């Protein structure tokens, strides 16, 4: 047993030395991983689109309508850049993509309110962009809600009830929404942690493939590996990537000021089988790559499908069953789900036992396939 362990240790050190000597692999396994983690979050630094320019169409031109325009402008979500008297003028601005939305105040706005009739505000938003539309809609709704509540409370007070009571009567069954884990709704808080896990997987897969390509070029075929060598290689990759993961979940989170609640140690314990599964998957695929560049060429495109099938951005419940199950073959699917639940939501290992066990299972399966590839040592067939 100690003999095997010593062999594994020697093999791991050999592999680390091989990485240091292969400029191509070193670039990907060390520098690319860190580089991506440093630049990818940059566009999301501001987290949200604020003060989106919209146009107000004031068909009423009354004191109340002007008050509403000021209230809309005062919201964080939108800024009223233009006040125009006709729809046609607003349309020009929206179609030129200068204004991203419009609020239309009807002619009878003030009069209807005074008479106690319901008035209808038209809200137009550019819905081809999800974030723009939802920010425009919520900004205007917030301003009109404030105005609306003020009006009704004044009415109720006029009919003799006190303010607190008036407030309650208006909405006898209110809804209180409590956003957890990303309370500000920031886009960066949402996407960056998941992408960091994906960066670990993609650079590691490509890096292992590059190492294999380099060897294939110099030896002309895959060398026959012993069990200890196979395990030693994986150990080398996992140890480099645990350091990456630790840096990602501390430095990147600090630099981009991302909220988190879980412990670093727990997330690293969880990521151990994730990195092991990725390593063995990489070794399995390494049989495919004959040149140093092959892995880059063949695997670069996989990031996009990988993030979308993980169920992180588009919910997995909406996908066909074969894809929901198939998605578990990629370590990123369970890796993202579990790492986020631990680090963002402070879940315990027991609470993420499903993805944790699935990743161990995946490690076992890919270990067998990797060993099959490495121990057969196929002859050159180019």
């Amino acid at each position, binding site marked *: 047993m100690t003999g095997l362990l010593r062999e594994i240790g020697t093999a791991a050190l050999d592999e680390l030395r091989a990485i240091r000597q292969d400029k191509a692999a070193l670039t990907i396994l060390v520098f690319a991983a860190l580089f991506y983690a440093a630049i*990818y979050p940059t566009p999301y630094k501001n987290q949200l689109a604020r003060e989106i320019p919209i146009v107000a169409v004031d068909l009423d031109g009354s004191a109340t309508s002007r008050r509403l325009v000021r209230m809309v402008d005062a919201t964080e979500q939108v800024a009223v850049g233009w006040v125009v008297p006709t729809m046609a003028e607003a349309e020009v601005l929206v179609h030129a993509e200068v204004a991203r939305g419009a609020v239309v105040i009807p002619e009878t706005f003030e009069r209807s309110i005074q008479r106690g009739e319901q008035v209808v505000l038209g809200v137009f938003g550019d819905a081809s962009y999800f974030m723009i539309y939802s920010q425009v809609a919520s900004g205007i709704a917030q301003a009109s809600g404030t105005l609306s509540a003020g009006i009704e409370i004044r009415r109720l007070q006029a009919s003799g009830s006190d303010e607190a009571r008036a407030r309650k009567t208006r909405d006898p069954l209110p809804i209180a929404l409590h956003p957890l884990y990303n309370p500000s709704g920031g886009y960066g808080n949402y996407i960056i942690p998941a992408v960091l896990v994906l960066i670990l997987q993609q650079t590691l897969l490509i890096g292992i493939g590059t190492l294999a390509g380099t060897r294939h070029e110099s030896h002309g075929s895959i060398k026959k590996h012993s069990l200890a060598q196979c395990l030693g290689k994986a150990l080398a990759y996992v140890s480099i990537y645990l350091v990456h993961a630790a840096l990602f979940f501390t430095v990147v989170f600090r630099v981009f000021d991302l909220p988190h609640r879980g412990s670093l140690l727990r997330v690293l314990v969880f990521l151990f089988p994730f990195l092991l599964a990725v390593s063995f998957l990489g070794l399995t695929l390494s049989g495919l790559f004959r040149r140093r560049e092959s892995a880059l060429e063949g695997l670069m495109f996989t990031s996009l499908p990988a993030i979308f099938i993980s169920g992180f951005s588009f919910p997995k419940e909406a996908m066909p069953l074969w894809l929901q199950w198939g998605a578990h073959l990629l370590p990123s699917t369970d890796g993202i789900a579990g790492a986020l639940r631990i680090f963002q939501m402070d879940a315990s290992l027991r609470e993420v036992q499903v993805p944790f066990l699935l990743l161990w299972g995946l490690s076992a399966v890919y270990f067998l396939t990797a060993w099959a590839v490495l121990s057969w040592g196929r002859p050159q067939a180019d």
Partner: protein
Amino acid sequence: MALILPLAGWFILLNVFKDRVPRNLPVAVIDLDSSALSRRVVRAIDATPAAEVVLRAPDETGAEGILRRGEAYAVVVLAKGLERQALRGEAMPVSVFYNAQWMLPGSLITRDLRAAVGAISSDLDASGQVARGASRERAKALADPIRIELHPLFNPALDYAAFLLLALIPTLFQVFVLVMAVQVVGIEFREGTADLWLASAGGSVLRAVAGKLLPYALWFTVLEIGLTEFTLGWLGLAVEGSRATLYGGMALYTLAYQGIGLLLIAFHANLRLALSLAGVIAGPAFALAGVSYPLFAMPLAGRIWAALLPLSHYLAVQTQQTTTGATLAVSAPRLLALLAFSVVLPLLCLPRLSRLMRDASYWMRS
């Protein structure tokens, strides 16, 4: 590489968004009131398109555990006394704790829950007003003096899956176009055959490059147009603008990534380095393209980077031509940018390439 992988990638993405608008996302309910009203709320939640009640917990202690185990995206708590208080006109809120880390399910569920609970609330309020002698119309106006009518422009069904899917086709292809361009040109230097390549084109670097790259440009453009047409048909979307502008833009877009590929090789004639740089360009491109996160909300560095990506220009043209029905004039600046990448950039690279093709000291690097 030029057929199977793009088709496989597209097929997977098509299936991810198969259902278009996610429905029946799991929601847990903790009903501590067990009253007619609380049951009405639960039924209303279950009846919304976005939410499905999959779990009922007996008390609040396990609420967060449900979210942390991923069993539901939201937990609704109906407190004891809910019905009694509501009927007295003393509001007691329906509390919804939702997982905002998973953004889309969270926003879909809260939107529907807000509407469902709001409808019950204004119904109770109107009933109260009617009981006090107001007419139903009048009661409605009193309950909500200003009503908002939402008009989502250009995407009335708020079908973001359709948008995302259409945008992902060119995003997927940029990787293939770029990698293929770098590969077919770079391999001549790597294998040390650049001089033979140049000779076979009669010594003209323009003819050599065009002869190698244009067939791929044609192939990828045709494939992209085919997949876009199929996807549009499958989504049931019409092209509001002009197909000529859209597909003209797509051809320029394809050439633009070949232009970038050429630049990467012209830089150092090193295939592996060029491919690594291609990864840096193509990897984060979708994040910077302004589809999921608007460009004007990015810091300056992000906006500059986005302006240097043909993808962001092409996706703007695609949105303008497929959904907003913009004129050619609106898309013109974007098309000009694409023209610069697809024509000017390669021409600028040619002198340097021609020098590299004659200088054997740049060959055989990896």
